[in-house]
């Protein structure tokens, strides 16, 4: 590991209870290969123990440390400082948008979890619905079949970090919108397999609320491709409606 050191100024969003928002500045000597979360932890450990933020796994699995770094939604545990600033530069750290702020950089993610619950988002998916290889959005040509009856399952990609909800320009003006992560969770189950989902997603707060900004896909750290999945869900909804119109099930 290189001994290179950078001097970086961190401008950190602060908010406690009903107090007005303020930004605190901390100048640190860091390795450019460290991650933004490392710097935030160091600020908490050595400069201000009242700083509140969420984190857990440090390897992009838990989805707890999502923040806005220089205005862009990032999973801070996998965002190297080198990627977001330069020696002598600044890094602005803010909480995710479109969620209530609990304190400083920590937000209340209930909105996301409730939406995931509404669509009964699964922790595992059939392999043919969510292939492991390729572009991650089209079923592979040949899905391996287990020797015994049944199907292979895989863990869901979505780590429920909330970056997609924060980046979505529509989620900030419609608190009832299910949001990209939940709609992607619905698409992965498919309406044909789970017809009850139709009424949940075919509504103003479901697939039709999306305005195709694709910011969700741009910030997703897990390659879930929520933008594509919402569009595919629309296609499924229209197909189901046409079938219903023609009297088919």
């Amino acid at each position, binding site marked *: 590991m290189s001994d290179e050191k950078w001097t970086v100024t961190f401008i950190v969003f602060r908010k406690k209870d009903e107090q007005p928002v303020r930004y605190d500045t901390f100048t640190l000597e860091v390795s450019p290969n460290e991650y933004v979360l490392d710097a935030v932890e160091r600020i908490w450990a050595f400069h201000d123990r009242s700083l509140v933020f969420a984190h857990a796994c440090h390897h992009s699995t838990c989805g707890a440390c999502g923040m*806005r770094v*220089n*205005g*862009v*939604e990032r999973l801070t545990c996998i965002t190297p400082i080198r990627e977001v600033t330069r020696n002598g530069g600044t890094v602005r750290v803010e*909480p*995710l*948008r*479109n*969620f*209530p*702020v609990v304190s400083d950089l920590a*937000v*209340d993610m209930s909105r996301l979890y409730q939406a995931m619950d509404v669509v009964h988002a699964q922790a595992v998916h059939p392999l043919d619905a969510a292939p492991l290889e390729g*572009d991650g*959005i089209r079923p592979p040509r040949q899905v391996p079949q287990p020797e015994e009856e049944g199907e292979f399952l895989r863990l869901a990609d979505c780590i429920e970090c909330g970056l997609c909800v924060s*980046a979505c*320009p529509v*989620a*900030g*003006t419609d*608190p009832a919108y299910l949001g990209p992560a939940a709609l992607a969770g619905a698409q992965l189950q498919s309406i044909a397999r789970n017809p009850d989902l139709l009424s949940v997603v075919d509504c103003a707060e479901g697939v039709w609320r999306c*305005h*195709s*900004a*694709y*910011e969700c*896909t*741009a*910030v997703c750290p897990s390659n879930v491709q929520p*933008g*594509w999945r919402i*569009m*595919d869900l*629309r*296609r499924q909804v*229209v197909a189901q409606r046409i079938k219903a119109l023609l009297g088919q099930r």
Partner: protein
Amino acid sequence: MNEPKKLHSRGVLDWFDPRGRQVGGWGFIINRISAIGLTIYLYLHLVMLGKLAQGPEAFDAFIATAKQPLILFGELLVIIAGLYHGLNGIRIALTSFGVAVRYQRALLIAVVLLTAAGSLFFAIRMLSIH
């Protein structure tokens, strides 16, 4: 019952803030701005048509005003907004039904290039007439 917690959001202002946005986000922002511009123009257009009811003199006076460079520039903005909004509408309609979603960035670049080419064509036509 507890009041709903206030979202950390600037509401509609976030629709128009390009900072930190990616290509698709820029497409969204320009789509919104062009939609607002075209809506305002629709009202101005109706006001202009209302001049017809006030007799030929009023209408001729309005047409003379409309030939001023600032108004012509405004008309060019309407053409740019119309072209962008219409072409981007086709892009969104396609992707909304699962067509070419993975190419939405390329489609947006094509929309911008076509808008620029169309705007240039109409700008030359307008300047050559006036």
